[in-house]
């Protein structure tokens, strides 16, 4: 299966990845070979029952969404990872 340069560019946009021309050409080539290989799963005949794909042994687990009081040090550690900050808030580029 082949894939066009335009398709690669579209996927990169959807994935929020900036790619240069060299990368686009490389991924175009590699995608064709990987998708060609993956396509063999189309040969497998699957019934509607299989499509459900749900394992009956799996049961949903839930827990109460509790807030645990953190140490001020933990809060600082988490906030310190943000590249742009103002006081205790993370700065984001203007959206509106």
């Amino acid at each position, binding site marked *: 299966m082949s894939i066009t340069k335009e398709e690669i560019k579209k996927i*990169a946009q*959807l*994935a929020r990845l900036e790619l240069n021309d060299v990368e686009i050409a490389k991924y175009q080539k590699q995608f064709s070979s990987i998708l060609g290989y*993956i396509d063999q799963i189309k040969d497998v005949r699957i019934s509607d029952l299989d*499509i459900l794909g749900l394992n009956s042994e799996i049961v949903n687990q839930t827990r109460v969404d509790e807030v645990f009081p953190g140490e001020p040090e933990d809060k600082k550690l988490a906030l310190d990872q943000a*590249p742009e900050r103002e006081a205790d808030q993370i700065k*984001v580029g203007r*959206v509106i």
Partner: protein
Amino acid sequence: MKLEIMTIKEIQVLLRNKKITSLELTEFFLKRIKKINPKLNICLSVFEKSARREAQLADIRITKGESGELLGIPYLLKDNILVKGLKATAGSKMLENYIAPYDATVVQKLKQAGAVLLGKTNLDEFAHGASTENSAFSVTKNPWDLERVPGGSSGGSTAGVIAGLGVFALGSDTGGSIRQPASFCGVSGLKPSYGRVSRYGLMAMTSSTDVIGPIAKTAEDCAIVLKCIAGQDNFDLTSSAKKVSDYSKNIDKKIKNLKIGVVREFLGDDLAPDIKKGILEAISVFEKLGAQIVDISLPFNKYSVPVYCIITPSEVSSNLARFDGIRYGHSLKYSSKGKSAENLNEIYLRNRGEGFGAEAKRRIMLGTYALSSGYFSAYYKKAVAVKEKIKEDFKKAFTKVDFILTPTSPHTAFKIGQQVDDPLKMYLEDVFLTGPSLAGLPAISIPVGLAKNLPFGLQIIADNFMEEGLLNLAHNFQKNTEWHKNSPKL
């Protein structure tokens, strides 16, 4: 006393009998890391100060009469697992300066047990790969041959154990990332059942198959570490409530009359001749120990890599969406920009375009494609259905046999750079390994031979949550052979 080749079990005795202190042990490994790491690029970071402090605390506990199995034992941790206050890069430029704000559950448990963290090991970026060449920082060398890869993605952890830079290590396995490098480096590496070990604090890659597991010199050591890190965790609701066994308690049990399945198709001509011979010899060892060898077939296994090539990138594209460079991670300066909505998108594009390496981008793109409108049914939905078929294969097999044996890898470690431009070839490294991952089954790789002075492994697969039997079988092999005692000259 050659500490670098000793097992947890052997070092425990030294510590208990006061032949050595944890601090002396820690100093030994720190010195060895200093000497060997520049040549092999195994550790991305080393924590001398905190390691000494942890060792001193362990020594106090030992003096007070405490005797935990991991108390005072120095270890290495894959750098995609979080330790509060320490760097966690995942081998990515995206997280080059990231400091973890909390401990992974496994780290918490090891801290309580008194194990001493020496350093964090190299990996393929975000655990994407089978050679550790995808790390943004350095290529780890295989200690057996410095021109070859250690395998991956837990290549730093497996190389670290065989090079004697730590007594044991933790890795993570999503589709073979503990077992394949364990085979290339000649160590024992266990991928526990999905849900046996909490994933809290492990950077998510493929949440439906990610598992943390032990890497050590013997299956018995893997059992000791697994007992410590396994168990249900409120912070990972996919962790299992099943009782954690004392995995080393019955490890010596005889294996007579066990039924072991062998898939003949897996021992075909794709296998290097030396490896085929070694695997057949290993199978005969189990036979001599009284096990019954039964031919089985896994007809859907041939689809496991293609299925993995859809499910994994799909989950990766979603899990790696969190890296936007705004809350954490690689970021270009944007305070001076950002006047309009277009610019926010530009920030995302640039941060992610610069921060991720080639393989991470490839997987994000493949996943985005497989999940995109118009392709979702043909790829993702179909892959999930075929995954059920692969699971069924194993289920059927385990009605006839207790365990399944396969080669871990079709060959020994390849040369650095040899297949970096062929992603498909890289994905096929895990041809025997992705099946158990997709089915959530426990599997271990143990060394069973050397081909041209390079180690190779045998994979043993067990039914869900049958780690106790799996480790018992692997231990029986190691009690009767010497392969696990080999180590490279460094």
